[in-house]
């Protein structure tokens, strides 16, 4: 077997198989470990609280991905078409923060959103809120805001690459055929950047759906996500089979989403950006 295939088999396929096999066991430890059952699947189907949390996590992932694109697109557009010789400098400024610790960037938002934090103090000083009335931290919104901040560079990059790949003469052709700048954007630039947008969307949506660190740090009780539930099953409840079932359900959802995306954009296009 070729080395890359071996790598894939050992580090991706094998763990998946182990997890899949765990989903059919009765318990985490012997002797239940050696009893095979589909009980946990039936259990999952009956647990409506799980479903609600899964749906909410999908919602959070959608909003996060959507908001990241809305904010990152103008950035990427500016870098490609307006930045000129500042392009490299500005691109670096966009990327460098992403090299600092992920945890650090999340904790920074705790400082900003906390009840005695930057934003509350500012609003209080400006007289826009009464003492303690704005609860920004420990909510689903705090999770979305933090994740959007974390993801923006990762969304901006594929959009940047897609915009960069557009042949300049095609834009001249649009102008030549009568398009003012905004029509050139709507008719040519935006449609041609869609593979980058789709890639950016997936880059955010998939990890956000499984996210558990950010909700644990800034989400509070109201901001719990499906990923936290999976973590609980493995770490607290020590119910590995149930955790495996929940992980597989999420994996299946992601595959369905990839399949839907592949009907709109070719996956090889995503790989190219």
């Amino acid at each position, binding site marked *: 077997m070729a080395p890359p295939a071996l790598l894939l088999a050992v580090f991706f396929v094998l763990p998946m198989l182990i997890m899949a096999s765990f989903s059919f066991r009765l318990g985490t430890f012997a002797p239940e470990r050696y009893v095979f059952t589909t009980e946990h699947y039936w259990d999952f189907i009956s647990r409506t609280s799980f479903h609600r949390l899964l749906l909410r996590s999908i919602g959070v992932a959608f909003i996060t991905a959507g908001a990241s694109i809305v904010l990152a697109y103008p950035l990427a557009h500016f870098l490609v078409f307006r930045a000129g010789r500042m392009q490299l400098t500005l691109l670096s400024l966009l990327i460098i923060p992403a090299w600092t610790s992920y945890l650090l960037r999340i904790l920074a938002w705790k400082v900003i959103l906390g009840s005695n934090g930057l934003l509350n103090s500012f609003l209080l000083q400006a007289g826009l809120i009464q003492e303690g009335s704005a609860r920004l931290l420990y909510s689903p919104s705090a999770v979305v805001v933090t994740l959007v901040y974390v993801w923006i560079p990762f969304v901006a990059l594929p959009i940047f690459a897609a915009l960069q790949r557009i*042949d300049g*003469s095609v834009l001249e052709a649009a102008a030549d055929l*009568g398009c003012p700048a905004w029509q050139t954007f709507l008719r040519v630039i935006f449609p041609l950047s869609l593979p980058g947008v789709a890639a950016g969307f997936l880059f955010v949506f998939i990890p956000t759906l499984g996210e558990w660190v950010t909700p644990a740090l800034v989400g509070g009780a109201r901001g719990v996500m499906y990923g936290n539930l999976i973590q609980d099953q493995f770490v607290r409840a020590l119910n590995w089979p149930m955790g495996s079932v929940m992980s597989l359900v999420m994996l299946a959802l992601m595959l369905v989403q990839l399949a839907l995306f592949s009907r709109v954009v070719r996956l090889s296009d995503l790989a190219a950006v």
Partner: protein
Amino acid sequence: MEFAAELRAVCKVYASGRQPQGAVTAVTDLDLSIRQGEFFTLLGPSGCGKTTTLRMIAGFESPSSGELLIQGQSMNAVPPNKRPVNTVFQNYALFPHLTVMQNVAFGLEVARVPRAERDRRAAEALELVRLPDLGDRKPAQLSGGQQQRVALARALVNRPALLLLDEPLGALDLKLRKEMQVELKSLQRRVGITFVYVTHDQEEALTMSDRIAVMNHGRLLQMGDPVSIYEQPATCFVADFIGETNFLQAVVLAADGTQVRLRAAGCELLVPQSGQQLSGGQAVTVALRPEKLALQSSPGTKGGGLTGFVQELVFIGTDTRYVVRLETGEMVTVRVQNAGQGSSNSWRSGDPVQVHWEQQCARILTA
């Protein structure tokens, strides 16, 4: 007479870098008048300013100085999307996300032409370029030649005052290029739109154009119809760039109103005047087209002519090229048509020969 486009003393300077001496002059003092309905070609080697000139007419570049008019209207301050011109780009620049039909209808859609008319005109345009059945394909599914036709249909469908073509045949193979040359020319006759065509291929320019403007180093060297450009080149550059030419260094001995007597390659020659002011002792160049020269065995019956030896000969089917080394060491190429059967009047390498021509075929050049 109203011109389709006029350039008056147009210059284009690119500021490159921060130093003023880094500026690059692409076009200098260019005056062009493009007539209504003609096939006008900008011809020159790469970097001569022909594409910059075309891009200024299209509006992608703005002149550094001078004035540009299209149908009598000043265009200096008009953006490309508001100019009554359309461009066929060198790499076609088709919209990859749209079908062929959508590509062709693009300009009409932007101009809010009603749907029924838009569809009809786009279909007509595709028929005009002989691609009526490919409307549903994407550009990537077409061959280079087909993409070229789509680009042409996409521009023509808008009925522009001028159609600008930037080396549109450059990417096609030789055979297809020859076919498209003929087709483009007949298409231009049928639609009656003024074509401004940019090329570095002199043969292409001669084949298709009503008039040619030869450019080099950002300047216009000569403008005229193909025959006058070929037969009466104004400078050595034009004579050399268009077709093949032998140049002989010469010194004027005497000049009257119609003829010039000069000394070249050790012989005295009589050459017709071509408009220049010449005086005795002046150094000039005599240009001789290889196909206008004839060979004769030396010593021959006719006197005069240049004498030398056949240095090299190349058989190229329709004719044979003889390279004759003159007594002064200068080389002259002679093309002899293979009119007769066999090789009745052929010479071998090393044979002594005389080179003759009809007097009016030689041309004096001073620049």
